[in-house]
């Protein structure tokens, strides 16, 4: 298997792991980690598929998109963490009400 497809499959796997954790875990910090890992998986598929150019330099357009994606992901993470802290301060729980099992 070529490097591109090897990493593309790893990206798919990361996406699946993140999606599963996003569904089954209640704690919001874990959900934020899961979303980040899902995002990394998508980025990895994009960049891996851009490398299918043989010996020529890889496609630069997905690279540029992933760079902005990484920076936007970290800012979205910061916003999500603030939301989580606010929820925790108001309700005393870092889980969404539907997910809480009393």
């Amino acid at each position, binding site marked *: 298997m070529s*490097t*591109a*497809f*090897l*990493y*593309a*499959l*790893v990206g*798919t796997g*990361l996406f*699946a*792991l*993140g*999606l*599963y*954790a996003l*569904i*089954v*875990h*209640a*704690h919001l*910090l*874990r959900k934020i*980690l899961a979303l*980040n*890992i899902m995002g990394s998986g998508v*980025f*990895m598929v994009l*960049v891996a*598929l*851009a*490398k299918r*150019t*043989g010996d020529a*330099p*890889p*496609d*630069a*357009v*997905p*690279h*540029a998109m*992933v*760079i*902005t994606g*990484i*920076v936007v992901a*970290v*800012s*979205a*993470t*910061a*916003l999500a*963490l*603030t*939301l989580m*802290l606010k929820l*925790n301060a108001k309700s005393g729980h870092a*889980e969404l009400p539907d997910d*809480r099992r009393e």
Partner: protein
Amino acid sequence: MTLLTWIFDSLLGLSLLWLAWRALACPNLFKAIVLFVAFGLLMALAWVRLAAPDVALAEAAIGAGLTGALLMAALAKLHPTEAHNDFAVPPEKNVTKVWSWQWLPAITILLVTTGLGYVVLSLPPYATGLSTEVAANLEISGASNPVTAVLLNFRGYDTLLEIVVLLLALLGVWSLNSADLDHKAAPGIVLDTLARLLTPIFILVAAYLLWVGAHAPGGAFQAGAVLGAAGVLLLLAGWRPRTGLMALPLRLVLVIGPAIFVIVAMLTLLIAGQMLEYPPTQAGALILILETAATVSIGVTLAALFLGGDPRKNNRNKNHT
């Protein structure tokens, strides 16, 4: 030799999957964060192996520096009085798993992933994508690094909107919380010296990445991330900006990137008739101006995001009390 790289790639891929699994499955939140930081480190190596050094630079600055610091600070605020070891989620609260029928999402996701994997593998093994178009227009773009050419020229409006997204995230954070501007406990001589010693080097490296981005991996996002990391290190070392800087000067620095971008977009619309279509002779200079402004804004936005709230609300409250 090809065997060696193949083993390296497989090992790296397996480590990434394993780290992601452990980070998402272990009950201990602190451990999960450390594993996630290690995951970011290995992601940077994976980008290197995928011949994407620009992406690796961004991941190195953000995955290895900013994300870890953000998560650690959030975890500390989540459990301010945590006395027991390592922030373990107590098993009696049973909050890690809410679903008693976990097999349902597991099977669904397994099916979806199998489908995705099949789709990925059925793609043609050789595809140039847009790389030929990028290479053909590289000469008139004003940058010889194709990634910079795409970011600042061919898809400049994307980059403009993405910088606005950063600003929106910061506005969201500001509307939710007020910043904690009180001076933290004394950092101690080692941390203080470290921050003083490294800050000039951070700024120098950011400027270097910005400059080198025209013809080699680097550019505004990577430089901005390094600049933001410098701000985070200073904040961690207990430095707080003067309150006078928090009102108008901070806001001006935050919007200078998007503002210059919009001005250039309007000017090119008037002169060339197309938004962000630079005249080839001035493209290099325009890209450098845009990137410099964007770097400053991105860096300050990231550091302000780490501060975690509106710095002005805090001042107002303090003045009243």
